[in-house]
């Protein structure tokens, strides 16, 4: 049982955020290796690695790269999604803070492979410190000829990289909403296939656009330095490589842990020092959007895309939250619902209205004024959102609530019957800043 650090290996080396120390630890060797190859050979190396996007969906990275037009003079854009907003996830924040050059290098390699002359890193507005670190790294990379015109003396390779910061909106992490936001609009999504074009065909400003997550780009220099086959030898056959999990909650040593995909879920809890304050009650393994796993279903689960799916949940972004037996699941679901109601962009009715209703009904239950039929009402609202929303935020708002009821229905029933928590001594926060008044409660 151990971590396998590829990305995070040098994260605590003093000065690794600066270009000299980064280079002396193998930095920019991946870019040099890439420039020694044909562009297609770089894409093939990424294909051989089996790398899958680390932003949540696990889509094969090489397929996107390969989808950009390979000839013609059309401008391409390269985007890095650093809007990390999924509750429970904090890996991109640390990567940018401590290892910004790894992200810059990964983007430069992608720019070469996909003939992109312009890139933007979309950094979440709150991440000021990470954005500042990235600024320094980009400036240094320009000075050393890793960005800008004629990179490393190659007259056929120019790449400008800019920072664009968000301003407080979870939905902007969704790739088409991010593009709207980059173009100066409200952060609302755009049509995708089958109703609209793929971003690699028509993304920002109508141009072919590649978007990947921070961690995805940070994997790329290692793949180019050591080879796709080397990377694919780690992890499982269908989920190759390593993945950073952000572990938080009731554990002794919360933090980012990089492990091989396929590692047993219980080992990650051990790595983080084990459960504190009580026995394990539940885990949310991939950020707030994925279904909660009760303790009795955790044994035997492996942390890879397929293993999580088989267990009825998802790997998602790797936001791994651990809850002990003093946790009130209904209150946890209430807070989850508050998040989605707050972050719904308002573009489509099922999500805009549905997330507010879920939030209000859960407010009512945890105010001690719930009715037994509220539990099925919640499930029915979930059914009306899931699959009927414009973008995946709506679906993601319904999954955790459904899974909470499926796995902990007795706790919801206890709340309704007794008007109080099944956890002795647990007093739910009375304040609710969910939108709208709380039905059934005297204000």
């Amino acid at each position, binding site marked *: 049982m151990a971590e396998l650090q590829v990305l995070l290996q040098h994260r605590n080396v003093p000065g690794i955020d600066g270009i000299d120390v980064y280079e002396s630890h193998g930095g920019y060797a991946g870019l040099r290796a890439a420039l020694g190859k044909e562009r297609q050979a770089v894409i093939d190396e990424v294909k051989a690695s089996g790398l899958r996007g680390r932003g949540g969906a696990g889509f094969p990275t090489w397929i996107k790269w390969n989808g950009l037009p390979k000839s013609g003079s059309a*401008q391409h854009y390269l985007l890095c999604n650093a809007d990390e907003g999924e509750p429970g996830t904090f890996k991109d924040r640390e990567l940018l803070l401590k290892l910004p050059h790894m992200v810059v290098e990964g983007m430069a390699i992608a720019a070469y492979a996909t003939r992109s002359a312009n890139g933007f890193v979309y950094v979440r507005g*709150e991440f000021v410190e990470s954005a500042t670190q990235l600024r320094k790294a980009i400036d240094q990379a*320009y*000075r050393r000829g890793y960005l*800008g015109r004629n990179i490393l003396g190659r007259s056929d390779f120019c790449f400008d990289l800019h920072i664009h910061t968000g301003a407080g909106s979870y939905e902007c992490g969704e790739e088409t909403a991010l593009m709207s936001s980059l173009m100066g609009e*409200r*952060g609302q999504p755009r049509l995708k296939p089958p109703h609209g074009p793929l971003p690699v065909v028509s993304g920002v400003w109508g141009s072919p656009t590649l978007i990947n997550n921070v961690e995805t780009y940070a994997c790329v220099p290692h793949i180019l330095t050591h080879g796709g086959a080397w990377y694919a030898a780690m992890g499982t056959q269908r989920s190759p490589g390593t993945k950073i999990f952000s572990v938080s909650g009731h554990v002794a040593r919360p933090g980012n842990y990089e492990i091989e995909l396929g590692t047993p879920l219980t080992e990650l809890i051990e790595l983080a020092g084990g459960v504190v304050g009580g026995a394990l009650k539940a885990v949310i393994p991939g950020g707030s959007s994925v279904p909660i796993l009760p303790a009795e279903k955790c044994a035997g689960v492996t942390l890879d895309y397929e293993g999580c799916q088989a267990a009825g949940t998802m790997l998602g972004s790797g936001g791994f939250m651990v809850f002990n037996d003093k946790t009130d699941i209904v209150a946890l679901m209430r*807070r989850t619902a508050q*998040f989605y109601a707050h972050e719904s962009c308002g573009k489509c009715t099922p999500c805009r209205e549905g997330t507010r209703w879920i939030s209000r009904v859960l407010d009512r239950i945890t105010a001690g004024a719930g009715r037994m039929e509220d539990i099925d009402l919640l499930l029915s609202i979930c059914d009306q959102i899931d699959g009927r929303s414009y973008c995946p935020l709506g679906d993601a708002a319904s999954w955790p609530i459904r899974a909470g009821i499926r796995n902990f229905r007795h706790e919801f029933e206890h709340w309704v019957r007794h008007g109080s928590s099944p956890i002795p001594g647990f007093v739910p926060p009375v304040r609710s800043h969910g939108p709208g008044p709380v039905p059934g409660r005297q204000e």
Partner: protein
Amino acid sequence: MVAASAGRFSEAGQAQLAEIVSHYPDPGGAILPALWLAQREYGGWLPADAIAEVAARLGRPASEIQGVATFYTMYNTQQRGRRHIEVCTCLTCGCLGAYEVIDRLEQILGIHLGQTTADGEFTLTEAECLNYCEAATVVQVGERYFGGVNAENAADLVARLRGSEGCTPESLSNAIVEAIVPGRNAGATHG
């Protein structure tokens, strides 16, 4: 519409805006960064004049700029306290004492969640996940994150804020502009 020349952008601010506009193939891309810039130039919030100035400088209707500004929570279309204390109460922080932190802060500041102290010094609100859950409970004030906040040390945090530089909406906006605009020494190949 106010003419850009009648605006309040400093010379440095105007130069930064010109640099930012050059990053995008269409000036629309500069709307979000220009709002950050305006929020700095107007002392930490966006009064109607600030919206009008951004609109004039980018050649867009003020209604469009206002529509964008109100969508994003970090643009202050209303003036807030000088220190906006945002306590994360999301999943991890909420289970690890965030609500006790809020109770304590309400006591110390003598206000309720969502309010501003009479002297205009502090505004207290609840935040969604600040994505630094390893340090729960996490509090953001301006450009700074504070981790490991609890009911016991909440008073120290307030005391520290009273005497500290920065941690205002203005310094937050400035830090973001500084991150967006390339360093002066970035070298000849930049641009």
